[in-house]
Structures are given as structure tokens and as C-alpha cells.
């Protein structure tokens, strides 16, 4: 032994403590240097593996990505970016057993930085994979109000859109609608953003919200075929067939290949042609439309009865709803003669009620109609909605 500490006696204690303290400080510095170098080396190795993992993940090779991220984590176990990447790869690998592991990585990250929007978004997606509406909503909201490293407004908007899409998928349109309202107030002046919001409004069943967004798009781009078609569809769903016809016609003019718009346009035109309730048509025209609708209803009734193999003549099938409707139609038919009488102000409604009953019940029994019958059915639905 080249040197020796003094023997431990009270006198030498301070010297010994001093020597030990110096030795500890030296050891600390030495180990610190070692750990720093080792860590730097490991981090460099980890970065290479992370790049490999990211490229594998972006190519959809999740097994390779998971392997690379795991290896990166063996080099730098505390690296939250690698943990996040691994968690994402585990989540996206479509193996339900891996969701637990993904979640545990993310929860550990979340516990360290609960305000980290990227971690919250990843957790929200795990919850969405699991189908948990409550958890997903909570984490999506955390992501929206969390800290983003870049483009916070855009990222928040995208997170909200993702939440809306998830809620629509989970059949929760009311929740989706409230998120959509918040989204509508935060949209930038950009046609694509408004277009996306409008389509989400339409999926959520909020036609007026969708229309508002389509109109915003049309302010930026008046010949945007998608917006014109969407505005037409939103108006059509709302029962505003005249406006719908205008938008749909414009849409078809811009994009003649748009089959959906063409179909909706045809339906709108049919409704406008068949409806006796337009205020700007003459009495004669109104009466003509009522008479035509009444005849169309009988035709529909016969076709439906034939389709179902039911005889409409009174007899053993008298209990069938179609037979009852036929009887009602027969009883009402003489009233058509009194349509011209100015005193019979309630008669048009009475006759059209019979038509609507026939159209609704045959639709229930024989399936959705086409052409004029569809137009009459939609008119009936609009009337009912207005009455309510």
C-alpha cells in the first residue's frame, strides 16, 4: 500500500473526514465525467435508432419501428421522445395487447408533463382505440388546451377535428355538435378549413351550421363545386328546396359528374313541381297539383299492394293498412270535385293529408319511393316538421 489514512482516533477524525470528502468529491467528478461521456455516446446511438424507427413507422412497418424504438430506449431510457414514438408505434400496430404498454409509456410521460399536448393527444388516440368516449374526450381537451411546441392554433384545431370525427364515429352527435360550434369560432379565413368544418356539421346533422360554413367557403371561392354541392344538400335536408335547387344547379354546372348533386337536383325539381303549397302558384295550378298528387297516391298504393301480394278490394284482408288506405282514398275521391269552390278552404289540406298518409305508410311497408312519390313523401315530412 503506497499510502495509508491515519488511524482513526479523535484527533485524526477531521483529517480523515477531509480526506474522505475530497475522495468523494473526486470520485463524484470522475463518475460525472464518465456518465456524461457514456450518456452522450448512448444518446447519439439512440438518435440513429430513432431515425430508423421513425422511417419504419412512416412506412407502416410497425414491427421494425417498435424494435428500433425499443433499442433506442435501451440506449437512452429516459428519453421522452423515444417513449412517445414507441407508444405511438405500439398503438398503431393494430395489436390490442400492445395498447396497455403504449398507455403505460404515455401515462408515465403524462405524469411527468401533464401539460404536454403531444402526450395528451397520443393518450387520446389510445383511448379512442379502446372506444372510451370519456377518456378520449378528456385527453383531446387536454391536448387542445396543452402546450404545443409549434403551430399551436393549427394543432389545437386538428385535435378538435379529430375529437369531432371520433365522437361522430361513436354516435355521439350532440357532443360533436358542441365541439363543432367551438371549432367554427376558431377557424381561420381558409376555404379548406371551412369546407372540412361544413362537412363535419353535415355529418353531425346540423344543416344550418353546415350551410353557414359552405357559405363562408363560397365567399372565398364562389365556384367551389364541393361547397355548392354541400350548400345544396344542406338546404335540401332542411327542406329549403328552392334554395337547394339553386345551389345544386350551380354545382352541377361546375361539376357535371357529381351524381349526388344531380340526384338531389332532380328530387328538388320534382318537389318544387309537385308541391301544391307554393305561395306563388295560382289556384288552378294548386288544384291541378293536388289532383295529380291524389292520383299518384292511388298508383303508389296499388303498386305497393301488388308488391306485397295484398288485394285492395274489401274482403278477408280488410284489416290490412293498405286496404284501409284504399278505402280512405275512395271515400276522399269525390271531394276533388269541390276543390274549385272558394268556400272549401280546408279541403286542399284534407286531401293532401290522405296523400301524405298513403305515401308515409307505403314507404314504411314497401320501402323508400322514387320520383314523384319521394317528392310527396319529403313534402309531407317537411309539413309535419313545420307543424311541430
Amino acid at each position, binding site marked *: 500500500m503506497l499510502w*495509508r*489514512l491515519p*488511524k*482513526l*482516533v*479523535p*484527533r485524526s*477524525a*477531521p483529517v*480523515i*473526514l477531509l480526506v*474522505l470528502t475530497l*475522495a*468523494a468529491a473526486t*470520485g*463524484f467528478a470522475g*463518475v*460525472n465525467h*464518465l*456518465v456524461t461521456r*457514456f450518456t452522450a455516446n*448512448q444518446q447519439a*446511438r439512440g438518435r440513429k*435508432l430513432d431515425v430508423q424507427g421513425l422511417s419504419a413507422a412512416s412506412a407502416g412497418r410497425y414491427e421494425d419501428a417498435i*424494435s*428500433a424504438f*425499443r*433499442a*433506442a430506449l*435501451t*440506449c437512452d*431510457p*429516459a428519453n421522452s421522445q423515444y417513449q412517445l414514438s414507441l407508444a405511438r408505434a405500439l398503438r398503431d400496430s393494430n395489436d390490442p*395487447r*400492445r395498447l*396497455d*404498454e403504449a398507455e*403505460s*409509456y404515455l401515462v*408515465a410521460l403524462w405524469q411527468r408533463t401533464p401539460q404536454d399536448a403531444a402526450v395528451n393527444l397520443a393518450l387520446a388516440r389510445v383511448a379512442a382505440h379502446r372506444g372510451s368516449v370519456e377518456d378520449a374526450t378528456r385527453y383531446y381537451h387536454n391536448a387542445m388546451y396543452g402546450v404545443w411546441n409549434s403551430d399551436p392554433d393549427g394543432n389545437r384545431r386538428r385535435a378538435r377535428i379529430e375529437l369531432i370525427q371520433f365522437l361522430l364515429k361513436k354516435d355521439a352527435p350532440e357532443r360533436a355538435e358542441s365541439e363543432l360550434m367551438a371549432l367554427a369560432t376558431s377557424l381561420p379565413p381558409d376555404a379548406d378549413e371551412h369546407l372540412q368544418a361544413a362537412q363535419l356539421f353535415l355529418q353531425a346533422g346540423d344543416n344550418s351550421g353546415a350551410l353557414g360554413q359552405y357559405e363562408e367557403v363560397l365567399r372565398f371561392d364562389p365556384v367551389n363545386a364541393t361547397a355548392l354541392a354541400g350548400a345544396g344538400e344542406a338546404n335540401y335536408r332542411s327542406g329549403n328546396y328552392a334554395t337547394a335547387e339553386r345551389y345544386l344547379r350551380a354545382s352541377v354546372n361546375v361539376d357535371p359528374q357529381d351524381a349526388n348533386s344531380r340526384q338531389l337536383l332532380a328530387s328538388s325539381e320534382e318537389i318544387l313541381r309537385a308541391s301544391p303549397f307554393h305561395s306563388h302558384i295560382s289556384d288552378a295550378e294548386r288544384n291541378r297539383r293536388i289532383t295529380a298528387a291524389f292520383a299518384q297516391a292511388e298508383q303508389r298504393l296499388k303498386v305497393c299492394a301488388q308488391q306485397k301480394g295484398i288485394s285492395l278490394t274489401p274482403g278477408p284482408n280488410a284489416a290490412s293498412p293498405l286496404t284501409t288506405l284504399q278505402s280512405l282514398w275512395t271515400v276522399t275521391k269525390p271531394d276533388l270535385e269541390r276543390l274549385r269552390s272558394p268556400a272549401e278552404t280546408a279541403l286542399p289540406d284534407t286531401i293532401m293529408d290522405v296523400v301524405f298518409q298513403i305515401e308515409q305508410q307505403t314507404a314504411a311497408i314497401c320501402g323508400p319511393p322514387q320520383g314523384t312519390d319521394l317528392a310527396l313523401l319529403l313534402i309531407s315530412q317537411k309539413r309535419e316538421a313545420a307543424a311541430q
Partner: protein
Amino acid sequence: MSSPVSTGSSPAPSPQPITARTQIPSRLFSTLEGVFNEEVFFLILSVFIGIFSGLAVVCFRLAIDWMHLSLLGPLPQTHGWRLFAVPALAGLVVAVLVIHVFPGIRGSGVNQTKAALYIFNGVIPFRTAVGKFLCAALAIGSGQSLGPEDPSLQIGASIASALGRQLQISREKLRLMAPVGAAAGLAAAFNAPISAVLFVIEEVIGRWSAGILGSVVLSAVSSVVIVRWFLGSEPLFRIPVTTFKRPTELVAYAVLGIVGGLASVVFAKSIGYLHPRLNALPRWTQYLQPSLAGLFVGLIAFLGAPQIMGAGYDSMDQAMHGQYAWKILAILAILKILATTLSFVSGSPGGMFAPTLFIGAMLGGAVGDRMHHFFPHLTGSTGTYVLVGMGVLFAGFLRVPMTSVFMVLEVSGNYEIIVPVIVANTFSYLISRSLQHVPIFDLLTRQDGLILPSLEENREETILRVEDAMLAVPSTILSAQDYVDANYHRVEDSTDAAFLVRLHPSGWNVISREQLQRLFKEGKGELMLGSVLPKQFLPSLYPDLPLDSALRYVNNYPLIPVVNRADSRRLEGMISRESVFNKYGS
């Protein structure tokens, strides 16, 4: 006290005349004497032992990681021939080093530390620490199925022993240095100070001793602080959500305990069977044993189970998060038993802590999965069973029931699973005890020709107590406040040779028949007995004291009173030399 510090000896008197200049250091030294007695210094030293051990363990872990990455690369991406070539070649190097350079590092670090405590007066050569560091880092880093905890424990003990020898502290304290260092090393390796303290008390020291507890705790805590400073405070595993809701689920954990207990027995018996047989083979085979073990481990890895290489903490982590099907978990447990048995008995330096946890984790996961399959209403996640399984093997294989419970709690940071852990560990421990009578560490020491004490044996020893040798309360008890002649007349009909005397207001004395007779004949009959009795302190004993404590008195006094703890005037009985010796002889 025989220690050089606590003898209270003052510094040698100065021949110089006392002046103002010499008074200051004299005062300083006398103050230092008061502050730095050996007890206090030992506590301070424990902190330094913790710091040095922590630094060494940090380096050790870096060395293992560096070896692993250099030799095998990041494990999930390791492919091909390296999986079996590296452990085989590294085994050859390790064998040469162990045989020619560091012969003292062969075997379990726990037992070597115990041997230092009980046989070698606390001496563990520093060379052992160096050898253990290098060879264990190479063996574990190259993929041998061993853990870093046992070598860390021995490195800590070795550092502590070297420091104690440097400071020339008393032999009594030097003996205790090794366990203090062992606790520091283990705490640093596990990042779990409580478990390390308990393990050292349960397995190394073998008894609860208040004298050393403070030092062990201080060293363990300071080493953990150092490790966390450098390597972060991340737990060894990402702990899953653990739940325990219905007491009926304890049945499932009991099943896990039974399976774990049986696996512990298989594991221990495999090591116990192979260890002496491989040791008995010709010396030249010892060059090949670690290499062949490495080759075997590498082949298992090559054939599809690389998880069994090294300590396996990453795989435990994945098992905890449901990454493996139950069949894979069960196969991994079996393969790990095989691989660890071969790695350990081949003489490769490394520990069995991590492999034990690995086997327990895999078994726990497999049992948990099956339980969920057959009883879907169970709420405990697979991760919970994995955690409990770790404790189960710890309790059954290492036979440290208390450490096993605290280890799981400390690692998981979750108190909710304490009941499942206790239930499962109890089953495992009892099964292991009934099927494998000698605990693994004791078995290994005996096979190496050493007999070291263990807490398990101590627990089972029958302790004789004072009440076992106690004689009934005598019919004649003399009073110190009575006259001598009155007392003399009271004993005339008695055949006893000595009598207890009740003192006033409290205490006891003893007088022989001859003494009393002599006093009476000397005409002191009208004196009070208390005034003529020789002034002596007669100790009292309590019925629950160990009988050993009576031994120091029975030669000095013919009778010793045994009194009630709540009322020292109330006599419960008495003991004599004959009654004590008769009890020991029976």
C-alpha cells in the same frame, strides 16, 4: 468497550508548559473527543461508504451497458451468430480471469459477505471488488443469465471493508463494515433502499441489531441518492395499474404462490444438484464451464428467446404490460431457470436476484393470464400478477419473506397489492421450506465447506427463557425490616440453604442459613435484618428474559428473584444455579 476510540483515553499530555497558544488546540481536541467517538464516526463513515458504493455501482452499471452494447448491440436488434458466440467467448475470458487473476470472486457475493462478517473478521480483499466488477460486467454484458445485484452487494461490502482496514477501526466495527457496504451496494443496484436494508438484515447479518441498523440505513440511503443523481430516479419497470378489489381473488394469488413455491424448489434443487458436481470436475473443465454455459444461453436466445439473456429487466417490463401470451411466459420462465442455473453453477460471477425476479414475473404473468381465462370476473391485471410473481420467487427461492414483500411494495410504489403479495409469498415460502429444507444461500455455503448462521435457522431455534428454569415462589421470604431473631425463627423449620430478603421500600437481597445463624449467635438478634445485611445489589430477572441473561449472575448469588415487570415487589419465582443448569442439561 475495547475499541480505540471509546476507551476515553485523552491525547498524550504535552510536556510543554500550558500557554495561550497550546490551550486552543487542547480544547479543540477535547471537544473532538466528545464529538468523534467511534459510534458517531461509524455513522458518518456509513454515509461515505454509501457514497463510494453508489459511485462504484453507477460505474458497474455503465460497464454492463457498455459491454452489452459493444458486444451484442441493442438487444431487440441483435441477430445471428453474435447471440451465441459472444457469451461463449466472453465465458472463456471470464474463466481465465476467475481462475488466474481473481480466484476470490467465484460464488455468491452474499455468502462471501457473510463469510467476511462471521469468519474473516470483516475482511474482503479490495481485489475482490475489482475482479467482481470486471468479470461480472463482462459476463452479464455478454448475455449470461445473471443479475448485477449480487456483485453490486459484494462490491459495496468490499469497498466498506477496505475503508475500515485503512482506518484501522476496531475489529468489532470492521466486522460490521461489510454488511453496511453490502446494503449500500444492493440498494444502489435495486434503487430500493428499504429492501436492501431488510435483505442485509435477513440474509447477511442474520439478526436484528439496533447497533448496526442506523449505519445500514444511512449507507443504503446515501448510495441510492448517488445512483439517482447519476442515473435518474426511474423505477426498474414501468409499473402498470394494479388493482385488488375482491377478497375472493386471493385464491388466485394463493395459486400463484403455490406455483411459485414449486418453481423455487425446482430452481434451488437444480443449483444445489449441479453446483457441487461441476465443482468436483477436473480443474481444466473450469476453463470451459462458463463458456459452455454462455453457449447454451446464446443458443436459447438464437433459437427465439433472447429475453433470457442478461438481467432481463426489459422483458419483465414487457411482461408487466401484457406483451407475451401465457405460453411464451411459461416457456421463458422454464428457460430462465435452465439458463440461470447453468450460468451460476459454471462459476460466472453474477447474481441470482434479477433472474429470480424474471422467473417470478413470467410465472406470475402466465398464472394471471390463465386465471383471467378461467375466471374472467377477476379484476387484477396481468401486470399485477407479474409484480406479485416477482415477490413470490423472491420469498420462495431466496427465502427472504420480509424483503420480498417490501421489495414489491418499493418497486411498485403501490400499497394496494400488499395483501395479495403477503398471501402469495406466504404460500411460496411455506412450500419452499417444506420441500427444500436448506435455503439456497446456506446450501451453497455448506457445499463450499462453510457453516454460516442464517436468520431462518435462528428463527427456528428454541429459545430458553427465565420462566423455563424458574422455581416456585418460596414459602419463606424474609423481611429486612424484621429483627434477626424473628427471621431466624421463621427459617428454623425450613430445609432451604438460602432465603430471599425483601428490602424496604423496594429491592431484594439474599442470605444463607449459615449467615443468619451466625448473626443470631453473635447476639445481633435484636437488630433489624436490613441493617446487618451486607450492602449488595441483587439483580432481579423477568420471566420472559432469555435464560442466557441469568448465566452472568448465577455464580455470584445463590438465589435470584424473578419479579413481575409491572410490579417489581411482586415475586413470580426465583432461579438458582442448579435450576438454570438443569434446564440447559435437560
